[in-house]
């Protein structure tokens, strides 16, 4: 007596191959979601209490990064400008514009402006700005073309694989120290040659040991 109907053969074949295809497809879909701006927030402008334009301040006015991000050369944290920093100029210019009302209010009340964080890492990752600056990694290498951002967004995925790209091949990204804060810097055609020279000169270690970032 035949227990199974002949079609079972087809169904079983279909389900075995189907499962392989399904798992492959699912993995692909999950991978794509993981890379997508939906998940990484790459290139997604963040809404801020004050629509601060880097493009205006950096490219048009030529203010140096370090004017606001004061601790970038000395600390792990680049630093966010205090209200006082904003008010050094804005107590003189654009003093009545409604866009800047939160800044004025903060200055009057002493209550801080609550900015939305754009570049963020998980809490088990320890990143240090100062050493990257010291080793000749430019601001725009990670933060993208900040000089063109009217509202700031995350320029890269900030995923571990992205970190490792540079940690494994720093010569592809390093630039001369005097160009670190240049937002218009374009890598020269002989980047690899220059990079290898700078890696030697700046004693750049290719640190890929886990404890470099995780502890």
């Amino acid at each position, binding site marked *: 007596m035949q227990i199974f109907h002949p079609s079972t053969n087809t169904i079983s074949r279909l389900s075995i191959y189907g499962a392989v295809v399904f798992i492959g497809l699912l993995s692909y879909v*999950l991978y794509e*979601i*993981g890379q997508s701006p939906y*998940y990484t*927030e790459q290139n997604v402008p963040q809404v801020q209490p004050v629509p601060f334009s880097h493009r205006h301040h950096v490219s048009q006015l030529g203010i140096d990064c370090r004017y606001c991000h004061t*601790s970038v050369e*000395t*600390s*792990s*944290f680049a*630093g*966010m*400008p*205090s*209200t*006082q920093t904003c008010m050094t100029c804005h107590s003189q210019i654009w003093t009545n514009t409604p866009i800047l009302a939160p800044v004025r209010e*903060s*200055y009057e009340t*002493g*209550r*801080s*402006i*609550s*900015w*939305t*964080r754009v570049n*963020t890492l*998980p*809490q*088990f990752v*320890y990143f*240090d700005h*100062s*050493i990257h600056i*010291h*080793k000749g990694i430019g601001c725009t290498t990670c933060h993208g073309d900040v000089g063109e951002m009217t509202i700031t967004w995350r320029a890269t995925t900030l995923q571990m694989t992205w970190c490792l790209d540079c940690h494994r091949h720093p010569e592809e990204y390093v630039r001369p120290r005097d160009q670190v804060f240049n937002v218009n810097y374009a890598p020269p055609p002989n980047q690899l040659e220059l990079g290898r020279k700078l890696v030697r000169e700046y*004693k750049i270690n290719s640190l890929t*040991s*886990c*404890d*470099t970032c*995780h*502890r």
Partner: protein
Amino acid sequence: MNVNNNRENTRDEDKSRQIATGATPSRFWRGLADLNGTEEARRFRADEFPGTESDLQAIEANPHANHISRRTVLKYMAASAAMAGLTACTILPTEKIVPYVRPPEEIVPGKPLFYATSMPFAGEGAGLLVKSHMGRPTKVEGNPSHPGSLGHTDIFAQAAILDLYDPYRSQTVIRDGEIASWDDFYAALGAMRGAWNANKGAGLRLLTDTIISPTVGAQIRAFLAAFPEAKWHQYEPCGRDNARDGAKLAFDDYVNAFYQLENADVIVSLEANFLYSGPGHVRYARDFAARRDPDSATRPMNRLYVVESTPTITGAMADHRLPMRSSEVEGFARALAANLGVEGANSGASASGQFADWVTALAKDLSAHRGSSIVIAGDEQPPIVHALAHTINEKLGNVGKTIVYTQALEIEPVNGFESLRDLVNDLNSGSVETLIIIGTNPAYDAPADFDFVHAYLKTANRVHSGLYYDETAELSDWHLPQAHFLESWGDTRAYDGSVGIIQPLISPLYQGKSALDLLLILASDTHLSAHDTLRNYWMANRPAQATAQPFEDWWETMLNNGVMAGSVFPAKQMTVKLPTEIGSPAASAEPANSTQEAIELVFRADPSIFDGRFANNSWLQELPKPINHLTWDNAVLLSPGTANRLGLKSEDYVNLDLSGWKVGAPVYVMPGHADECATLNLGYGRWKTGEVGMRRGVNAYYIRTSNQPYIAQGLKIQRTGLNYPLATTQHHHLIGPVGEEDELESVQAFERDLIQVSTLSDYKTNPNFTHEGEHQEEADKPESLYPGYPYTGYAWGMSIDLNRCVGCNACVVACGAENNASIVGKEEVLRGREMHWIRVDSYFRGGVEDPEMYFEPVPCMQCENSPCELVFPVGATNHSPEGLNNMIYNRCVGTRYCSNNCPYKVRRFNFFLFSDFRTQSTYGMRNPDVTVRSRGVMEKCTYCVQRINHAKINAEEQNRLVRDSEIKTACQQVCPADAIIFGNINDKSSQVAKLKAQSRGYKLLEVLNTRPRTSYLARIRNPNPEMPAQKLHPPAAGTIDQN
């Protein structure tokens, strides 16, 4: 079971024989269970977390108890595998950045700042440097320029951070149990002050702890001058009354004595635990350890003699230790004094016969070291012992060389018990209208015979100010929250009189006010701030040498340094003026008698939670107490002999009856404890404090009376037949052969002891003793089939000097504070799941009556051939090119394979969500440089990799290499004895490389070829060859049964 019992009997017979012949067994043992080879010890030796093993056995024994079938387990496994993958898909939550409005000048976001301050505690001020991250104090370190600290601290200073952020701290003014405000109190105070003005303060009483703060002292004096009828009482349950009265007895004046141990060749402790408690103990540990280098040509090793009842770390460091009942110490001191020619010291002392040989040899050694010896009396010993110690020191010409006398540290030295007795009498007579209690908790810790609670309730106005809403607060009309010392301004004095300023690290988290603030309020000087008051006081009273400098400059410099230059008390010339009564020994010292019903009871401040004030501090509660490793509880400590005689074993619950005062307590059998004597630690059994400290352990204050507060006679112990589990970590992480199924490799590994000990004379003749028994053929064999990794850059390593380590546990608390370690609670400690990354194992050698005791701190060994790395399925633990064995928490899935394969048992696993992610107030406490671990994650010592990385970044930015001693691990930085040294072993000129090259260096389980980076320096004892051979008490009848 029969077989087991037989085996144990045989072992015990062996032991008895060895004891009878005077030979000590050479084997080291971790505790009685280990010595007797019980099932408990076997379990802990076989497994790192035996709690899980017992779970499995329970399931095997009764598989349907929880209705978990194999199928269900598989379902859960599949589900958790799927879920584990999904958890990686969470989108990072949106975070806010909140910058300053007007940034403070010094703060660089992301960089910590250090401020100097002082911690007032137990009669002195410890000098501290406190790390502050963006205004949040996160870690306490010692202040290197402070004489009492020299950059190190004890456990209490380390744990102070947790007290600051403790959510159970008193947060608001409470009136009759209802929330009120400071304004309400001001109004009520106004009415009270009207009455004081009218009657000059008659009926007004102040009760404080021992005041050593010059400014607060001046405030109280001014207050008493304004209200001349008011009275001031001082009481501390574990204060230094005996030391004060002893000085008064010897010199007819209150003086402060401090020791210069670096000049002492021979040290005698009359039950003084000077390495662990009392003013100056951090400094003393350092000075003591500095003289323990067997290779030093210029500074020969010192020799320490200790007589004591209950084993302490000072006793463990002794070259000769004599256990005796606390009441016998007086007889010993008299005999010693008489032997050294103090007239009339020993007339009629009966006890001298028992230790005549000891005294003779000791007196000879002391006489040979006139001017370079010292006799120290313990704070628990009666005043006469202190007076005798002063007399002996004078006789030996030690004064000015190893001991210095200065004026008293206290503003108003009094006997606390007498002071409180006066107060209670006044309370009972109804002559007290208002009692203001500042910073003490007498409802809990007053002697039982005072019946303080009822006396207190007879007072009309009861005001209490304290850190917690405690037992006294509950009975008070007004409870006022006190500010933590990290939130307040103040001053204090160190053991030598140097003034340290208490500087706030943060403004009060709650509505707390310090004693200084409160006295301003009481004196109606609220227009002045505490800061002004402090400045004004020191403007008028600064040391003479500083008056040339402008005050502002002087003040700023002093705040920066944390210690006031030139404020050390000048040495005082004192001459002993002993009255003639010295000739009559106290009658209480009856010789020990094994037939008597009643024995002696010794009260001690708890080594972890002190007099009870740290009861709510879980870091200290879970800290294994030195030597017996008890956590979360106190117990009646009994010697094995006495326990045997009384038919008791550890964890038996007994009723204690001390002349009619009764309390129930569990028993713990303590090797090395004096016979016919019991020890009970104070500080437990709190019934009103935070949740952490409430209803834990036994309240020893229930049976403590004012006439015998430290050494009490007439304790009767009654069995109840009940059992009380004690969470001791004594046998946790036990390393040794498990049993018959051992592989040859591990049998070989355990042939060599984990702890290496020799004597100074043996060491001189055989400096390479730690390498004895190393098989030559083993050494010739290639260590691995694979070529070794070339460590070309930094190679981090650690050396731990067992000769210096005093076993104070400071490293354990410091490690937890630095690395955000979590606390697991008593139930989990019982299953061996405590989370300390570094542990201080204690080892015993010899008979149970008077064993030698040793300490061995064990952090991760950072093996070059790590067994843990090889078995990791997900690569969450990896080796770094600098030799660190990294632990990557975010990769860990919790298989526990790694801990299973770690021969040193240094890995810790988060079986539950041990880290507190819910209590907001503790967020600020965490070290932002270290991940807070969640459930299901393995963790372990990282050599403080966050500190290594910071130092490396710092060095690279300055285009140099990391300097030697630039990186200090948390355990190294805190260590009062400098026993732990960390550094780059590739740099042959580094301190750690030099230490590792010493001949007494050795590694744990070296035969396993794990190539540990943590290595040890063997312990060298310095016994006196003329001492009588260790006199062991007659073997106890019967066996010591731990089952």
